[in-house]
């Protein structure tokens, strides 16, 4: 177990280093002088020179990278070009919104999808299975931003049950905050139920064929016990990995949902900064999201032996 832990931790180091190099190289690769691009054509040479020195752009590239990495390692992501705010606190504030939506949505999706997949596998090739599989494939095929627009159209504009635009933090008004995040959460949960149900069904089918399931049935265990005690725990491991991938995937793709529902989340911050050519914020968002993705997958992998002890024993 300990060996597995160390090996898995060591694997993240090259990943994180490559992430850092990619994000750093990004600003260097943008055609033209980044300082000129940031300040616009009307900036005077002294101003350009000052920002260049401030960003360390007068040094050699490896020196710049080392300098930048050292600052990032202690949480200094620099300052926004557009409003001068420190980048990291800005990111953390926006991240709370995104993280809340993603975590709740994935939890709901898992609670629906894992049992649904199990039932479909248990009744494989029956009408129930066909209905669940068809429903999951359909959900998998709907783009999240379109589903979001349709839900807004229905509940916001036609039925007028929920507000269409805006966001209120939970600390200000709990009830009102709830009305703003219900639809984004519902949208994301529905989209992810598709992928998770299919995964849960596929791995349940494999487990149901194994000898210990036959054995459990042969010794007279009731069907609910066979499913709950033997199939579910063993079929859950691959689904658990997919949940980790989905969490990261959602953090990368949350920008579209935040755009549909006008939420001040991390994805929206990234896209807005790209439009504003606010490169320190862009760099910060990319780096932060990538690190979160790596950490989430690390946590998922470290929990994996809880569901499948064979992994740690290898």
């Amino acid at each position, binding site marked *: 177990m300990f060996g597995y832990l160390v090996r898995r931790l060591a694997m993240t180091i*090259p990943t994180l280093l*490559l992430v850092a190099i*990619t994000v750093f190289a990004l600003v260097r690769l943008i055609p033209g002088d980044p300082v000129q691009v940031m300040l616009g054509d009307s900036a005077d040479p002294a101003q350009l020179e000052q920002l260049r020195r401030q960003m360390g752009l007068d040094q050699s590239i490896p020196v710049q990278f080392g300098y930048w990495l050292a600052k990032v390692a202690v949480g200094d992501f620099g300052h926004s070009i557009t409003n001068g705010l420190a980048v990291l606190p800005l990111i953390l504030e926006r991240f709370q919104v995104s993280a809340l939506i993603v975590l709740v949505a994935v939890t709901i999706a898992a609670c629906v999808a894992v049992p649904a997949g199990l039932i479909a596998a248990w009744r494989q090739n029956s009408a129930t299975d066909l209905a669940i599989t068809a429903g999951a494939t359909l959900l998998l095929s709907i*783009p999240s931003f379109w589903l979001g627009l349709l839900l807004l*159209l229905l509940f916001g504009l036609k039925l007028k049950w929920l507000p269409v635009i805006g966001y209120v933090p939970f600390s200000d008004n709990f009830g009102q905050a709830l009305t703003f995040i219900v639809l984004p959460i519902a949208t994301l949960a529905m989209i992810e139920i598709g992928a998770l149900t299919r995964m849960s069904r596929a791995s349940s089918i494999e487990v149901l064929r194994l000898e210990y399931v036959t054995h459990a049935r042969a010794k007279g265990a009731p069907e609910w016990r066979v499913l709950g005690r033997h199939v579910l725990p063993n079929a859950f491991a691959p689904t658990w990995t997919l949940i980790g991938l989905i969490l990261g995937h959602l*953090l990368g793709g949350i920008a579209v949902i935040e755009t549909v529902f006008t939420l001040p989340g991390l994805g929206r911050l990234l896209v807005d900064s790209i439009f504003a050519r606010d490169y320190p914020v*862009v760099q910060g968002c990319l780096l932060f999201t990538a690190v979160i993705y790596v950490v989430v*997958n690390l946590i998922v992998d470290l929990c994996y032996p809880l569901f499948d002890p064979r992994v740690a024993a290898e």
Partner: protein
Amino acid sequence: MKMRANTAIGGFLIGILFATAVTAAFWTPFDPLKVNLRARLQPPSALYWLGTDEFGRDVLSRIMAGAATSVFVSVLTVTFAVIIGAVIGVITGYLRGWTDRIIMAVNDALLAFPGILLALAVMIVTGANKFGIVLALGIAYIPSVVRVVRGTVLSIREREYIEASRVIGNSELYSMARHVLPNSLAPVAVLATSMFGWVLLAESALSFLGLGVPPPAPTWGNLLAASRPYMESAAWLSIAPGICIALTLLGINLLGDSLRDRLDPRMVHG
């Protein structure tokens, strides 16, 4: 039985997509870019089958042109990613040793990066245009191809016919190109099918954000983005492009399933 239905429905949907895309390259009912302010925001009618947008442009024509753009971008991206990924995968899987270790370390690190984020990062450098998207999404998906091809090559290179090719004095390069590459294509075909769907969705999402193909050129993603302000008064604008994306993805998912079932006998339905 169910498998055949999957193939039929999936094939039908994707067939329609490609037929529409090819047709749109030569003919659309109206000029998709032609502004006609006297026909603004018309609901679907006999003349304008899917209505018109805020500039009086025909929605059906724009959707057809959008299909052409999406198919063009997706096919080009998948081709690009598969070719580069297959070459790297074959080389690394065949040579093994240090080349393999270094390439795979970089590859795994890239895989640990959310694809859409990598694509966004590349887009910032290339700028928002058709070829920027192809490059960005292509780079984002190369690591998955490398992984699949390398895995297949590792198992193929131990087969007897590769050994035979080596024994009769063929060069390593010849054996790779002539024997290993063609035999590792089946899993790549499965991957390429799913990838076509991911790319199409990612392209729509980027265009929806305004970071994809720039307007006035229509894509399904930017049609949806442009429909937002008129969602209540002109709902047809937001419904038609979404249905197109969903049906295309459904077709690809169904085709992908049947392809996987055929190539992976373990998963054959009992």
